[in-house]
């Protein structure tokens, strides 16, 4: 116990001076009677990539989902503690989750394009949020989102073909394009590359680095190399607890916590 609180204390010292976009304070998540997260305190810095690592089942996805309240869709799931997006407490009853999710977008582990055309996939979000004023506006949003997702050149001639016809890596980039089309402030990605081959993975990783300019990104990954490559900050979870967080290079080269050490050297997980 004391070891972990020490870890949190040291981590908070190591915080860089980028402004924080989201903060979690004493976040606990329960699935029914089972507690999956224990008092997590974490700050997500603006325009940085934060990666969440840890052995499977440790609560990375759970924490990620609590950041845009996707947990609300799971029956019996309860969140306590406080999570802020800028100044707003996102679990405040006055918050409309739909608006929240427009601000905090999500990309999932398995690419999940809608069985509609590529264009419709990307246009759906702007449409329901009333972002585009007219058709030309909407076209512009779709095109620029696809461009920023690095997919434009591959699909520009077949925007009206079904999105499900693309390859896995393309589908995932389509999902990213779809997520950024609603102009979110934060982008959550839950193991976005785990269903992809190495080449597609490399493309997505490059993309994440570019997206950092405009978006705050939180990514769950089980690959430590990936975390090291794409993220500036890393948080290590174990058994539902946040064990250590800090600058990525610090975590990987100089972990303070025994469990972190064990994990990055491959002894747990």
């Amino acid at each position, binding site marked *: 116990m004391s070891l972990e609180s020490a870890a949190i204390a040291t981590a908070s010292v190591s915080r860089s001076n980028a402004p924080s976009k989201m903060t979690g304070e004493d976040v606990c998540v329960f699935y029914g009677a089972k507690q999956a997260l224990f008092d997590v305190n974490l700050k997500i810095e603006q325009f940085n990539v934060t990666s969440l690592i840890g052995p499977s089942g440790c609560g990375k996805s759970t924490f990620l989902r609590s950041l845009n309240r996707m947990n609300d869709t799971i*029956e019996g799931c309860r969140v306590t503690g406080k999570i802020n997006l800028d100044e707003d407490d996102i679990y405040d009853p006055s918050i409309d989750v739909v608006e929240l999710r427009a601000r905090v977008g999500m*990309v999932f582990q398995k690419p999940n394009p809608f069985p509609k055309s590529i264009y419709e996939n990307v246009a759906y979000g702007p449409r329901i949020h009333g972002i585009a004023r007219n058709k030309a506006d909407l076209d512009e949003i779709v095109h620029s989102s696809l461009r920023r997702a690095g997919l434009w050149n591959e699909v520009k001639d077949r925007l009206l073909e079904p999105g499900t016809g693309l390859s896995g890596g393309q589908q995932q980039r389509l999902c990213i394009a779809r997520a950024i089309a609603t102009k979110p402030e934060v982008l959550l990605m839950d193991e976005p590359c785990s269903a992809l081959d190495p080449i597609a993975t490399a493309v997505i990783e490059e993309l994440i680095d570019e997206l950092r300019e405009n978006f705050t990104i939180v990514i769950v990954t089980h690959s430590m190399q990936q975390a090291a490559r794409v993220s500036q900050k890393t948080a290590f979870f174990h058994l539902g607890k946040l064990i250590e967080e800090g600058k990525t290079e610090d975590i990987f080269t100089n972990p303070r916590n025994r469990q972190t050490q064990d994990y990055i050297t491959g002894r747990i997980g």
Partner: protein
Amino acid sequence: MTDAALPHAAAETAAPVRRDFGLKRRHAAEARFRFYGIAAITIGLAFLAILLISIFSKGYTAFVQTSITVPVEFSAQIIDKDDKRATDPKVLVSANYPVIARNALAKALGVDPADKKAMKEISNFVSDGSRSLLRDIVASDPSVIGTTRNVTLLAAADIDSANKGQIDLNVPEAKRKVSDQQLAWLNQLKAAGQVSTPFNWGLLTFGASSRPETAGLGVALVGSLYMMAIVLLCALPIGVAASIYLEEFAKKNRFTDFIEVNINNLAAVPSIVYGLLGLAVFINFFGMPRSAPLVGGFVLTLMTLPTIIIATRAALRSVPPSIRSAALGIGASKMQMVFDHVLPLATPGILTGTIIGLARALGETAPLLLIGMVAFVADRPATPLDPATALPVQIYMWANEAERAFVERTSGAIIVLLVFLALMNLAAILLRRRFERRW
């Protein structure tokens, strides 16, 4: 599995040389078991074949109707003796048209109109429906009065049967419905080329009648159509709405469990119970009219609802959760998720289930008997509140008629019903093939 294998394994260790202990017996048992399976399937298919063959062989003749074309003299003497039609058009309606038909036939056959007995047999030769046929000709064009025209009259049901070879000529004449004289006339007319057997449109258009040759499914078809429309308009929206609620929104609790049990049970409640419900609630309590397709439609709606709900829920469930999270993840509300993504993807499954439910409703008889759809209705209903019958009920009513010609029509009506059902099921199958999606 162990009790089958263990003794065998023990035998193996005891006598490793012999491995075929009882093998012959076991293979024989295997063969016997297989045979039972084949026999069961054969029995099922045989009954299917016998059933269809018996219906079709009895019923296909109902689709043609013997008709007799003779020159008919629209005698002013008979129709409008006192020449009053200019002042009193009613005379044209009440004129003695059967006499005109009889005379025309007598003339064609060369029978002396004074021969009372022969004339009586001649009256029985053509359908009583000739009355309205000739009346309509005169009413639509009074100028035919005094002229002679070729008119095609329906043969009476017994003559129709005789012409189709359904009457056993070995039976003594006195016990037959058709006399030797009439048979001779029939042959005479045939030889003169005046007998034809056109497609029996009347079977599909006429209403109820006590005479087989003018009895048809017209009223029943319209009644069934109204009911199907009502079932579609009521059961589909309610069923889909209920399924969406249960599948996408309802929390798991006592209440939804209770609804769940209810629906599963309602799907298995005997259909006649729905008839009792309709009688007690719609007719007795709300005072809706008996025999009305509206009430029938409501009863069938309640009966079909569980089928549609079960099919719709299955279709909704088959839409993968990843689609739902994708929509929610970009900030669609739950309602938008359902109506923009899940429902469209479930539509083929929903429609297939609906068509199958409708097909079941179309063939349903028992509840309709209780709400008074067993009615003698001659005119096609103009609205769903007018009395009508339904296709299967009409079949039931004809099955209770004694005459030979009604047996043929019963089977003919069954063929019509089966054709509709086959078309609906075909539509369901095509829909499933065309839009089936593998995730």
